[in-house]
């Protein structure tokens, strides 16, 4: 159980982790039902569907119905997992997730793939920068963002018996490895993935790896930066945020609009606690997505290690 970051990417892409874990969950628990909206081939579950169409249900291109069916399954004792691309898993089904699932008291796990700029060549129509904001506003919802393959697998298992509505955003590709396979995660508890005393970066998803790279660059300059993986955006780990604030310099980094995301959650926490470190939010600055390769998009929206380094230098 440890942090094993060395900058290299996870060897297994997350769509493979997702597909294998989903099938293992179904095998382990007959009440697990997997639902997708004609994107099984995209997330590594099509073979599972062909092997076990009783527990893997293809709902066709009808996301609203998928979430409603999941609510009905939950009310009849099943444990539904739903997947589609992030924009469809959030804004397209928001009322169904809000009312049929959350307000209705049902337990449904929603997975939105291709968060933010990782949607790359699918472009602005498929590039959710607002999904975290939407789900944060649903009472008692759980909002997670995956930063690592081992984390994805572990959290998918943890969510099996988790109550309420959860929304998990994940890339289908791979980010740099952060954790050993046996790392334990607790929803509501963020992870300190790098210790440091001069400043702290609270990041999630794609930006955890960028933050680690930024911390390495700054370490070479003698600046000791703490990095926190706040994969549990809601419930937020308030204690960890306030502890990081003790460094006196804090930035948040997210592959999401800075409005309504991790940065806002952290800012509100600091202000209400009466703590005021130097503070900046890194994220998409109230813009829509666009098409292009991910590295281009990261530069375009300021979502790189270099942006983090420059921001921290500017605050010092």
């Amino acid at each position, binding site marked *: 159980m440890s942090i094993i970051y060395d900058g290299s990417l996870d060897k297994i892409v997350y769509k493979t982790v997702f597909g294998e874990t989903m099938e293992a969950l179904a095998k382990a628990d007959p009440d697990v*039902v997997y639902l997708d909206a004609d994107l099984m081939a995209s997330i590594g579950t099509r073979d599972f569907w062909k092997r076990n169409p*009783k527990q893997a*249900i293809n*709902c*066709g291109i*009808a996301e*609203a*119905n*998928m*979430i*409603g*069916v*999941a*609510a*009905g*399954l*939950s*009310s*009849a*004792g*099943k444990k*539904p997992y739903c997947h589609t691309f992030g924009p469809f898993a959030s804004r397209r089904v928001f*009322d*169904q997730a809000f*009312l*049929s699932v959350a*307000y*209705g*008291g049902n337990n449904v796990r929603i997975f939105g793939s291709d968060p933010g700029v990782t949607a790359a060549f699918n472009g602005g129509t498929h590039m959710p920068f607002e999904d975290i904001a939407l789900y944060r506003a649903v009472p008692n919802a759980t909002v997670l963002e995956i930063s690592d393959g081992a984390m994805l697998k572990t959290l998918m298992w943890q969510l099996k018996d988790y109550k309420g509505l959860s929304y998990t955003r994940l890339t289908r590709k791979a980010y740099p490895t952060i954790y050993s396979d046996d790392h334990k995660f607790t929803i509501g508890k963020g992870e300190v993935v790098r210790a440091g005393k001069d400043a702290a970066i609270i990041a999630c998803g794609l930006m955890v790896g960028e933050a680690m790279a930024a911390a390495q660059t700054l370490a070479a300059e003698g600046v000791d930066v703490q990095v926190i993986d706040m994969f549990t955006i809601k419930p937020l780990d308030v204690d960890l945020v306030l502890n990081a604030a003790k460094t006196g310099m804090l930035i948040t980094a997210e592959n999401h609009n800075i409005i309504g995301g991790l940065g806002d959650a952290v800012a509100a926490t600091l202000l209400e606690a009466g703590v005021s470190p130097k503070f900046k939010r890194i994220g998409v600055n109230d813009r829509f997505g666009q098409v292009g390769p991910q590295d281009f998009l990261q530069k375009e929206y300021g979502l790189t290690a270099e942006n983090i380094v420059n921001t921290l230098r500017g605050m010092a």
Partner: protein
Amino acid sequence: MDIKQTKIFAAKIRLETVKMIGKRGFGHVAGSLSVADALAVLYNDVMQVRPENPTWDGRDKLVMSKGHAGPALYSALALKGFFPMDWLNTLNQPNTKLPSHCDAKLTPGVDATTGSLGQGASVAVGIALARQMDGLDARTYLFLGDGECNEGQVWEAAMFANQHKLANLTAFVDYNKRQLDGTVAEVMDLGDIAAKFASFGWYVQVVDGSCVEEIHKALTTTGGTDNTDGKPLCIILDTVKGAGVSVIENVEMNHHMVVEGDLLNAAIAECEAILAELGA
């Protein structure tokens, strides 16, 4: 089926619906009245439920997707003994267990939370799918409004029910021909609603929605899981919005209306006269 008893049950649903909405002074009265007869047949004669154990796993379930018809459902449930009759006086009062739209977390016997139209269709389909997976011999009943069928989600759910051969699902369409802003024809014409469901792969019956015998026949001759060619069953209830209470039927904009004073007294008198005629 004891036709007279079922008619009495329907008349009592109407009386209680009018009274509870009258107590508040306004509400979704007309769309509640139009489903009273179907609810009476279900709860008096057809559905397997245990009022003393509302969450019994083996029960038939009902999803009132036209969630604003909550008052009619609450009347049926109270008459059936799911909760005390005096709860009906609390409709839409602070801290009530009987909100304007159905809430499964609040009300014993309510199986799904509804109110955003179209959503109950998918929830009912999900319940039916779970029961099909479990091999549980229990039906799921869904109530859709005709105006509600404007919602695309209804048709997503209809396709899904056919794809998964949910023969354990019965959907009623309350074809009362009126929605909030006017007639269905002038707002968003449904065309041939029976043909639409049939073309989506459902076994469709059209009945007089005020005739308990016809409703019962449609449910019992084709309502078994093996009599609809493996198809989900759709029963179009040909109804009138405000059915059975002429002073409400006659109000043009009756989707949500004021029910007080002389109109309330006349409505109660009408319901009581029907009960008296039935010897109840």
